């Protein structure tokens, strides 16, 4: 019961939104730095980024540490992840040249997956990808790769085919070319980043609002009365959202990887 009282103390009735949980504001403010080494400030986001990196490295190291004829159960699981990204995503969308891009796609998939699952990790409960900087940076990497690959494989024809598409009737060609130019070089990275960002922000807010307000309702209901009949399903619904958010976290990592592969594919074979 002490915990419940503590939860109710953290809310201030004077504010407009009664008892807004702290987590809601957390997404839209710059958090203060936890510690700093020289000129580098380490905020929660930076610490979690490094944590995600080490988790990915540790997972891959543990999975492929020993090469044996019969791999361990964990090794089999990691192998299935790697072969899924290499065969299904890279070879499936890019074609025979896919394995060249598989290392990038695998690292981006693993990093986003771990970063998304921080949302559901007890004790952290903070999706790393709900900070715009991180999905935007990943999208910029993908953008750089598909632009550089496009120009190095096709030369200036890459740009020319986008601006002047041969398959479109002549009257509309300039308009389609203009739309394609904006869509390929501006909208692609922005939507790639915003899709990941917005999904995770929405999920985090939904979890926070359902569980946080459910928790505060619990605290506000003094005695176990009629109101707790409403509160308990509300809280349980919030817990049910956990499963849904797990699916969203995995699916968004997959979609980011898949779209990166599709964008690289359009640069490798621009005529499609």
């Amino acid at each position, binding site marked *: 019961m002490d915990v419940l009282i503590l939860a109710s103390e953290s809310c201030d009735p004077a504010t407009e939104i009664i008892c807004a949980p702290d987590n809601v504001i957390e997404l839209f403010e710059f958090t203060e730095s936890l510690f700093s080494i020289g000129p580098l400030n380490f905020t929660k986001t930076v610490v979690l980024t490094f944590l995600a990196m080490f988790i990915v490295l540790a997972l891959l190291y543990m999975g492929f540490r020993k090469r044996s004829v019969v791999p361990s159960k964990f090794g089999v699981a990691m192998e299935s992840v790697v072969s899924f990204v290499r065969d*299904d995503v890279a070879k*499936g969308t890019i074609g025979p040249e896919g394995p060249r891009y598989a290392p990038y796609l695998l690292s981006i998939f693993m990093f986003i997956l771990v970063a998304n699952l921080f949302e559901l990790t007890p004790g952290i409960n903070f999706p790393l990808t709900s900070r715009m900087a991180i999905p935007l940076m990943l999208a910029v990497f993908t953008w750089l790769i598909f632009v550089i690959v496009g120009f190095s494989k096709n030369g200036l024809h890459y740009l020319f085919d986008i601006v002047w598409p041969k398959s479109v009737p002549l009257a509309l060609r300039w308009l389609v070319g203009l739309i394609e130019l904006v869509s390929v070089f501006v909208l692609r990275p922005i939507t790639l980043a*915003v899709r990941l960002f*917005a*999904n995770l*922000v929405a999920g985090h807010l939904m979890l926070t609002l359902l569980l946080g307000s459910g928790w505060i309702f619990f605290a506000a209901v003094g005695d176990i009365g009629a109101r707790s009949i409403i509160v308990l399903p509300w809280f349980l619904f919030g817990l049910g959202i956990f499963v849904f958010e797990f699916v969203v976290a995995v*699916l968004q990592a*997959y979609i980011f990887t*898949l779209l990166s592969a599709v964008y690289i594919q359009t640069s490798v074979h621009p005529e499609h």
Partner: protein
Amino acid sequence: MEEIKGAIALIGYGLAAIGPGIGIGIVVGNAIQAMARQPEAAGMARTTMFLGIAFTEALALIGFVLFFIA
């Protein structure tokens, strides 16, 4: 005309969600039809379905972000 008060961005987000809602319904419905008709091509249909969902969903998500920016 009197000044409109309240969270107008909420209405904007609601409007932005209509189109993608219909769109995702069409995409998933047709993907299920394709999978039912040709179960051997289910893998390809699923991948393409996720791609279609991702492209359609982007509009709603842009509305969602604009809700916070506005």
